[in-house]
């Protein structure tokens, strides 16, 4: 015979621990209230349990809907780990100094290449510097509003596309598959972050969600 525990176990499948705790608490509260109402209507204990459980419906359908609005375990993991680069950058002064000065050095190198009439090398170095700046200096930027976050993400993806075409020239379309494979982790993270943004209220967004 189906029990509330069995129902809950199916309803919280693949949800994060916090989400699962929320679901268990609210469904338990609801079940208790429904059971109490059924008892007051003159049903015996067994009937009251059955009525309360039946009213909840299909746990798999509830699970599908919960996964659309609450964090899943994989999204919670992304959220926990996605500030790793910021923590790495801010962990020591010399790492920060090296990463920030590397971009300046690339910019100078690009300018020097232009001056030496080496436009291909100059544009390649410039794009590399811009990519580094995009990923490594951004934790220091004041990006903590939705609009700024959107602008940053639009610039980031435009730059990534430009990078593919700058490196491969006119064959950019042919090599787009290689770029997509190389940037797959970035694309995966971006997709997961988009999912998380839809599920978390803005007041609970950590900084990395804006990026």
């Amino acid at each position: 015979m189906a029990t509330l525990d069995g129902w809950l176990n199916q309803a919280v499948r693949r949800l994060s621990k916090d989400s699962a705790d929320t679901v268990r608490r609210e469904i338990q509260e609801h079940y208790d209230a429904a059971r109490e109402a059924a008892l007051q209507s003159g049903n015996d204990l067994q009937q009251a349990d059955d009525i309360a459980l039946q009213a909840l419906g299909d746990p798999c359908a509830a699970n599908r809907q919960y996964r659309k609005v609450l964090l899943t375990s994989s999204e919670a993991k992304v959220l926990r780990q996605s500030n790793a680069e910021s923590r790495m950058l801010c962990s020591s002064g010399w790492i920060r100094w090296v990463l920030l000065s590397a971009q300046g050095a690339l910019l100078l190198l690009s300018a020097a290449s232009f001056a030496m009439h080496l436009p291909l090398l100059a544009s390649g170095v410039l794009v590399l510097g811009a990519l580094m700046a995009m990923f490594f200096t951004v934790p220091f930027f004041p990006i903590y509003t939705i609009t700024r976050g959107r602008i940053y993400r639009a610039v980031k993806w435009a730059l990534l596309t430009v990078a593919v075409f700058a490196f491969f020239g006119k064959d950019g379309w042919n090599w787009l598959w290689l770029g997509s494979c190389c940037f797959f982790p970035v694309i995966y993270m971006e997709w997961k972050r988009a999912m998380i943004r839809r599920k978390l209220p803005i007041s609970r967004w950590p900084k990395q969600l804006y990026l």
Partner: protein
Amino acid sequence: MNLKGTLPTLILEVLADEPSHGYRIAQRIKQSSDGLLDFKEGTLYPALHKLENEGSVESYDGIENGRARRYYRITRSGRKVLNEDRAEWQQLSRAVSMILGEA
């Protein structure tokens, strides 16, 4: 009767009167429709979470009959959404009635 897509609006309508907890919201929807609108109560909470994520409702902890309860109340933006949904529903309902009335 199928409630697909209308549950958030019905929840907002119930909460527009007073803050309430999940079980009471479900009962209010069923009672107000004379039992015509029946839905599986396990799907009520995902709809409430969605409304909360969108900023249409906010939740807080309360006590009823000595038992801890999660209460939900409508926000200002929730009332705006409800007014828009009401207007949209009335238009749709009028259009369908016109077509069915002519058939």
